[in-house]
């Protein structure tokens, strides 16, 4: 029992550092996923038929293959096959980001499609080009509507990031595993890691809820139903 307390105490700062790495992976992946997701969503709603089919294929692939398989495929396979030399952390950010992009695109697409069609017409009637109208009129509305989905996506990504340890990234999970295999205090250590993730989920969701409040405009319902 005493030994357990000691191990927890000693390893806590080490695990907390891991939380920093986890945060980098998650935030990086979210932003990368955002960039991909927006473009896919716009392409799926406004794009030509061939483009819609192409991005549809992308979404189908990344939504249908497990993260673990994607991590192995890109880190050990495709990246080196293409001659790109990336650190494990960078690979994690890219793979999680590409996957998240596929999921995020569906959030944005739903939001864009839920806007009244008159919006685009009105913007065109004012002399805006389509891309200007999408950037200035459609997306600012759609993104506000997407925030609850975005917050959900955050908590999914956070949990998925725990898989990065299979590539040896030194985030929470990898460090916990490392300490546990040395001290044989598996149960308390993994429970502590679980607690860390739980807190990170809670913090992130709170933060995004705060953001929602800040960008709120009367008449937009953020919480469906």
């Amino acid at each position, binding site marked *: 029992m005493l030994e357990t307390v000691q191990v927890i105490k000693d390893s806590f700062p080490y695990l907390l550092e891991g939380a920093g790495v986890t945060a980098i992976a998650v935030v990086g992946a979210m932003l990368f996923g955002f960039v991909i997701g927006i473009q896919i969503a716009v392409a799926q709603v406004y794009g030509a038929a061939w483009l819609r089919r192409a991005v549809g294929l992308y979404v*189908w*692939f990344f*939504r*249908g*293959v*497990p*993260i*673990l*398989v*994607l991590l*192995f*495929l890109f880190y*050990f*396979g*495709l990246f*080196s*096959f293409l001659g790109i030399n990336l650190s494990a952390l960078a690979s994690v950010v890219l793979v999680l980001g590409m996957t998240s992009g596929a999921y995020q695109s569906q959030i944005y697409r739903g939001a864009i499609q839920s806007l009244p069609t008159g919006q685009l017409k009105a913007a065109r009637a004012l002399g805006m080009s389509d891309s200007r109208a999408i950037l200035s009129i459609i997306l600012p509305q759609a993104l506000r509507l997407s925030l609850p989905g975005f917050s959900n996506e955050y*908590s999914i990504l*956070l*949990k*998925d*990031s*725990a*898989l990065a*340890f*299979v590539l040896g990234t030194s985030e929470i*999970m990898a460090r*916990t*595993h490392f300490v*546990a295999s040395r001290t*044989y*205090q*598996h*149960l*308390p250590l*993994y*429970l502590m*890691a*679980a607690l860390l*993730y*739980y807190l990170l*989920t*809670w913090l992130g969701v709170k933060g995004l809820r705060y953001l929602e409040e800040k960008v709120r405009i009367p008449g937009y319902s953020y919480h469906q*139903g």
Partner: protein
Amino acid sequence: MEADFILQELMPALNRGLLKTLLLILPSASIGLCVGVLVGTARVYGHPLLKKLGDGYAGLFRGTPLVIQLFVLYFGLPNLGIYLEPYNAAVLGFILCTGAYQSEYVRGALLSIRRGQLLATQALGFSTLQAMIWIMVPQALRRALPGCGNEIIYLIKYSSLAYIITFIELTGEGKILATRYFRFTEVFLAIGFYYLVMVTLADFGLKKLEKRLYIPGFGKG
């Protein structure tokens, strides 16, 4: 050589793994759904204490990564003198995790059913249990079907985590093969293809089911 590798090595290994993966998914998905229905119903109509318990369970398992849950079951429980076989630990972890998510969909669906219907069952002399079984849960399941179906698809993909706790299924077999022959791209593309087929088939089946169970008034949204 190339065809030899695919036919002699890759396919047999992946098919063997696929079988193991199915052995993981089928019980986990079906039992997990039952857990979700029971817990979801308890979270809406149960005794206040039961509600709290259900909320706590769902919050805990939805708020932490599945891989940690599996590690707690497989590496952590031995600290308490409880030893689980890799397969049992994996299935138990999947059931607990997927059940938590399913309970959330069931709960949301139950809450969306107009309360008047419960009054009507009472006025007709239904017991609470009868009302749940014949009136509330059947409607909730229809409403929750898209969410529950999605969750099953997630489970298909996350079943790949079983290999981390040494139950060698599809991903595990592939990993071994890829490392032995140092052919990561081909092997993992092939594995990805296996999962894509499973997910696409499941998606197709679920859409079919949704159509078959369609009732006016229970459409989308």
